[in-house]
């Protein structure tokens, strides 16, 4: 297993980064954050022109047949830009679930791959590989679904809802569900409560929801890496410029040492994210989530402190990253949940 980036991955990264620099710098993300969080135009370009929507879709269904490693690089860049697009929800989570039932979902996979449709997996972001049903009360009976899922990301922009219930995956027309978006902590990844009251549903097949969530958690570590990198880079640029006591504040040892420690945390987060994207085992995913979640939050918090008052303002986009980091820390398991899982995965049993 290699933990380095391949040339193909670096090309993909450059394409995504250039587009985001052009079309959605953090200031632009901030501007639309309170109105229409998602940017459908940007998503169209990413999905169709760069082809990120079909990265994980096999070639026979019209996708690129790429691996999690390529998707991870896209997520690093989307994290660096807190880009308001449904890549994680549609192209990663929903797509991964569909791949388990691909015999009955080929046509939908094709539409997703071409960027003609967007899907959302109706699971709570607060669910985890260890408690996949958390936040959902949905049950299936006679081709109809009933119940509620809270904290669903990407539902309000989805053309298809994919709903796990009783070990199966169902597809539902969003028009048949009630989707209520309330203000979300993370402005760039809104969450909704989705309610089904006897909604007609098509059963697609059996799904291992814990496995899908584990896959999402492993890749989320790369997005968290991207968030941390932006916070670190932006802070470095700031402390080089900002002067107090007739010196750049970055020349003070008290500041330097904090940044050196943050850098070391980020270096290790990169290795952890690469390992999770490459082997995807329960153990590497748990390690990456236990580490990267905390690193993203810590770097964002330190970035805020080191920016002084400006870091506390709405005007500076830093808060978008802090909010994303804190929300992502909870998504797909908290760092504590993942550490707890390591007790058995790494044979570090607890007290009897």
């Amino acid at each position: 297993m290699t933990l380095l980036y391949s040339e193909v991955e670096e090309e993909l990264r450059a394409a995504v980064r250039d587009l985001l620099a052009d079309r959605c710098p953090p200031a632009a993300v901030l501007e639309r954050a309170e109105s229409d969080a998602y940017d459908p135009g940007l998503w169209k370009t990413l999905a169709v022109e760069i082809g990120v929507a079909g990265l994980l879709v096999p070639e026979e269904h019209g996708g690129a047949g790429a691996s999690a490693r390529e998707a991870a690089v896209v997520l690093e860049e989307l994290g660096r830009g807190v880009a308001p697009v449904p890549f994680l929800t549609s192209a990663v989570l929903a797509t991964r679930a569909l791949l388990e039932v691909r015999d009955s979902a080929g046509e939908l996979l094709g539409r997703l791959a071409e960027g003609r449709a967007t899907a959302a997996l109706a699971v709570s972001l607060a669910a985890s590989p260890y408690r996949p049903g958390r936040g959902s009360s949905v049950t299936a009976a006679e081709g109809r679904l009933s119940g509620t899922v809270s904290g669903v990301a990407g539902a309000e922009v989805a053309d298809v809802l994919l709903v796990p219930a009783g070990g199966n995956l169902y597809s539902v027309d969003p028009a048949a569900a009630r989707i209520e978006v309330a203000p979300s902590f993370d402005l760039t990844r809104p969450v909704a409560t989705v309610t089904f009251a006897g909604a007609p549903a098509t059963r697609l097949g059996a799904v291992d929801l814990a496995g899908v969530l584990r896959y999402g958690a492993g890749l989320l570590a790369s997005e968290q890496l991207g968030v941390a990198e932006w916070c670190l880079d932006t802070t470095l640029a700031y402390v080089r410029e900002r002067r107090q006591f007739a010196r750049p504040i970055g020349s003070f040892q008290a500041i330097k040492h904090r940044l050196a420690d943050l850098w070391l945390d980020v270096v290790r987060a990169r290795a952890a994210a690469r390992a999770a994207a490459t082997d995807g085992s329960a153990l590497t995913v748990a390690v990456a989530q236990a580490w990267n979640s905390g690193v993203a939050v810590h770097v964002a918090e330190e970035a805020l402190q080191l920016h002084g008052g400006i870091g506390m303002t709405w005007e500076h986009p830093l808060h978008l990253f802090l909010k994303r980091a804190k929300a992502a820390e909870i998504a797909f398991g908290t760092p504590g949940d993942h550490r707890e899982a390591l007790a058995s995965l790494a044979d570090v049993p607890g007290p009897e």
Partner: protein
Amino acid sequence: MREADLVHEQRLRERVAALLDRHDPGGDRLEWLRARFDAGLAWVWFPEGLGGLGLPRELQQVVEHELAHTPQLDTGVQGIGLGMAAPTILAFGTEEQRRRFLRPLWTGEEIWCQLFSEPGAGSDLATLATRAVRDGDEWVVDGQKVWTSGAHHSRWAILVARTDPAVPKHRGMTYFVCDMHAPGVDVRPLRQITGEAEFNEVFLTGVRLPDDLRLGEVGDGWRVAQTTLMNERVAIGGAPVRQGGGMAGAVLDTWRAHPELRTHDLHQRLLALWVEAEVTRLSGARLREQLAAGQPGPEGSGMKLSFARLNQALSGLDVELRRELGYDDWTFRRSDTVDFYGRGPGYRYLRAKGNSIEGGTSEILRNIIAERVLGLPAEPRADKDVPWKDLPR
């Protein structure tokens, strides 16, 4: 792997097989190690004739794998020679110096130590005051060094001394190989908090060193020392560790064997440290991949820093876990090496305190990362352009 590497790998395997054909690893240990060196299988990235074959460094692992069952080096006692002296001699030594020193260094016939730190010059190493004055074809060295690990069994030392006090501190130093058997070299033990004396003070009084023991140009000692120091940090923090190995492994063994000692608090902390150890291991593995691919990343600068933190946190937790109020041995002893795993948790805890000091304090390493890796502005320096002799001391 590239095709050229596969060809090299095949040739290496043949070479190892030929060595095993001609020499019995079960016979005389020294004879075996000498034969391995002469076959170019000591460090394959060194030039031919100097224990190597001029091959890419990552191929060393092929040799190590093939020869894993044969007599191995004592990397504890030989650590400074292998990790610091050898790469410096390779980079700056003359052909004669390389031929004279590298073979017995590698086989362990001659042990090395490092005469760098002084009572007044630790983190600010460039203020060192040990003088070397030229006298014809010789240099006369006077001064005092400190924290010299293993000086008591060393045949040679790498030494930095001041040769020109009239220029600013970084410019007036020269690098030497010091003969530890020369008259005027006085090694005295320094007893440590562990009870033992693994390091020393070394007094140098009128020590005469021939000029052919000089390494690099006169006045270029700081640059030569940088090579040593960079290698030192990689040697201390960069060794490959297996998953759940190293200091974590020592704690985990006890943890698994003694369920009655486990508490919820220790469990939480151990799991967090297990994660940190694992991500540190992974970034070490990534660093080695980068080096092998010819893209040295800055990650190396952080390895020693994380190693020190982890060793200290884990060894502290280990003492708590065992609730051990005893200690294995406070006897004043002259130890050969740091025996982390051969001794008890109390020893490990105390010895690990040195990990954030020796080979560059964690504070200095953070400065290096901040300035050289992250490009932050330097702190104002009062001493940069002042001749060494005029510096307040």
